[in-house]
């Protein structure tokens, strides 16, 4: 049983969401374009915008929008 095991249960961790600081959904939307451009540029987006990656780990809807924006901007970046 997990109680006697010192390894965190991955399924339980997924249900309980990320630990540590995370931004809200509204803050995530505000910062998403800047975060994605930092990622495309190869900059340390998580250092520049703390808490956003953590939020994406806990919010599937914001994660989908992040992944779509990253894919769209990356495709344009490659086309240039």
């Amino acid at each position, binding site marked *: *049983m*997990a*109680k006697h*095991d*010192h*390894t*965190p*249960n991955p*399924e*339980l*961790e997924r*249900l*309980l*969401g990320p*630990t*540590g*600081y*995370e931004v*809200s*959904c*509204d803050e995530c*939307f505000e910062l*998403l*374009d*800047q975060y*994605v*451009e930092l990622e495309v540029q190869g900059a340390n987006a998580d250092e520049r915008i703390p808490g956003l990656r953590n939020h994406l780990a*806990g*919010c*599937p*809807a914001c994660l*989908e*929008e992040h992944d*779509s*924006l990253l*894919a*769209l*901007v990356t*495709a*344009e970046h490659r*086309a*240039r």
Partner: protein
Amino acid sequence: MTLQTHEAPASGTLSPPHGFTRLIYSRQAMKLAPEGRDVSFDEQSQAWLAALRGDGVRRDQAIARLHALLLRAARFELGRRRAALSYVRGEELDDIATQAADDALMAVLAKLDDYRGASRFTTWAYKFALLEAGVRLRRRAWQGREVVLDPETWPTPADPGSSAQEQLERTETLEALRGAVDRALTPHQRRVFVALALNEVPIDVLAERLGTNRNALYKTLHDARRKLRRELAAAGLALAEDS
């Protein structure tokens, strides 16, 4: 204001719409401002703002180009989710893309003063179209499906692919979690946690059914998760360190 829509492939690819918008989307034109001048990206963003804040024909043309840009982003999102929406007619998907672009255009124009240039204007604008399209597609996927808000609706502990020991551990973990949910959460937190985390109801679908919004629901989920983590840690379960 009249919104101009353009015929374009519904595949969600990066193909340009017909007409003048081809200028904006063709490879060699990616660095062109709305007026067509060759400028840097910061200047390009400034040119978008100037044109959208301008008067008359110049503004109308900029709005039409912006709508085409947003429609393209909405179709890009549809293309990414096409496999999961194979049962939805193409005409309906096209309508969803157009509605998403229309609402995104309104949002962009209303929030123009909020744009601070932290990213390119087009990247900033895209996110509105992706949000509008994503919300609509999640709701369409759940159209006609019942959202069970009963906190008693828990996932089945059995997983045919796992060993008897793994199934036992999963059952015990879910039982421990269920006990923590009963002890630590308010009725509203229970409903939200069970729907979003356990039953994986999309947050925009639940927000619509409960008459609230994504931000408020996620706050509730976040608070519930923190309470459960503390409760389970106190019960002796091994969990990642909360900071």
